[in-house]
């Protein structure tokens, strides 16, 4: 990390929604115009603050979906009974304004400059968002580190970043596309043994998803021989 980044003064920055793109019936990517955006690292977060006409405010944390060097973007999945996500997924339009604070976070972050270690990305549901930032960054920087994504999703229509992730390992837990070689089910030890880098290569794993998913997967990776300190996790809900 650059020394200048050590002391970080955070302020709320005004942002304008530049572009809104439906990813699935439940998730939408919002590209943000943020004057003064300092740039971000792959896997970092941003806090989004909404203010209603009567002054009521709500703040939520979202993973950045775009790669470093690109405009900041978030992908938001609608949470049933949510307060902020239904607005961001269904209501907000290009030109609408929000405030953001960030980028923040330095734990669930990947840099091409890291020492050569193969990287396994494991995402469940919208847990794929920060992994997409990492994967995109990896591709754009033409980094030689072997990197692979395993993405667990309920059904084909819920796959976020569909085109971009075609070549990755998709695991469908409820419904598969027609003719899919693997029956619907959760990521298990057998599948991990096929796709995960062997522990002997000192791989680094990034696991993001709902709490139960992350607990299950980090447990499975430990069983496989991954070291606890080499598994970075991020849990929501």
């Amino acid at each position, binding site marked *: 990390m650059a020394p200048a980044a*050590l*002391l*970080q*003064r*955070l302020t709320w920055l005004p942002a304008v929604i530049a572009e809104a793109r439906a990813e699935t019936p439940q998730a939408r990517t919002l590209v943000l115009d943020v004057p003064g955006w300092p740039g971000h690292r792959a896997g*970092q*977060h*941003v*806090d989004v603050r909404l203010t209603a006409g009567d002054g009521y405010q709500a*703040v939520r*944390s979202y993973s950045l979906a775009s790669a470093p060097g690109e405009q900041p973007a978030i992908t938001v999945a609608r949470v049933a009974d949510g307060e902020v996500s239904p607005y961001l997924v269904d209501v907000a339009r290009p030109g609408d304004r929000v405030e953001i*604070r*960030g980028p*923040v*976070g*330095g*734990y*669930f972050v990947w840099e091409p400059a890291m020492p050569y270690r193969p990287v396994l990305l494991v995402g469940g549901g919208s847990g794929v968002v920060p992994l997409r930032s990492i994967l995109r960054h990896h591709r754009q920087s033409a980094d030689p580190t072997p990197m692979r994504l395993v993405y667990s999703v309920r059904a084909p229509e819920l796959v976020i970043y569909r085109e971009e992730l075609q070549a990755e390992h998709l695991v469908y837990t409820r419904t598969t596309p027609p003719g899919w070689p693997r029956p619907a089910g959760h990521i298990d030890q057998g599948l991990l043994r096929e796709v995960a880098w062997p522990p002997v290569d000192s791989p680094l794993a990034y696991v993001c998803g709902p*709490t139960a998913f992350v607990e299950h997967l980090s447990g499975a990776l430990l069983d496989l021989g991954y070291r606890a300190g080499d598994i*970075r*996790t*991020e*849990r*929501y*809900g």
Partner: protein
Amino acid sequence: MHVDGNAAAGLLTQVFARDMTGAHGTCGSCGHNGPLAEAVVYGEAAGTVFRCPTCDNVLMTLVEAPGRILARLAGLRWLAVPI
């Protein structure tokens, strides 16, 4: 409803003026040591509550009041901050 310390990165940076998700904390109750990113965080309460992922002990609370953030760190024995 809970998340983990990654989602509290903004608030932590507000308090400590640097990223703290990679800082390691030791639980004052069970002695578990791990990054704040892996603490269990209850954010939709009157304040933000960080709990030990092993024993649920409250490590830290952050309360956002007008013009200040009140940080109670009583549940942490140690905090190791990478530089």
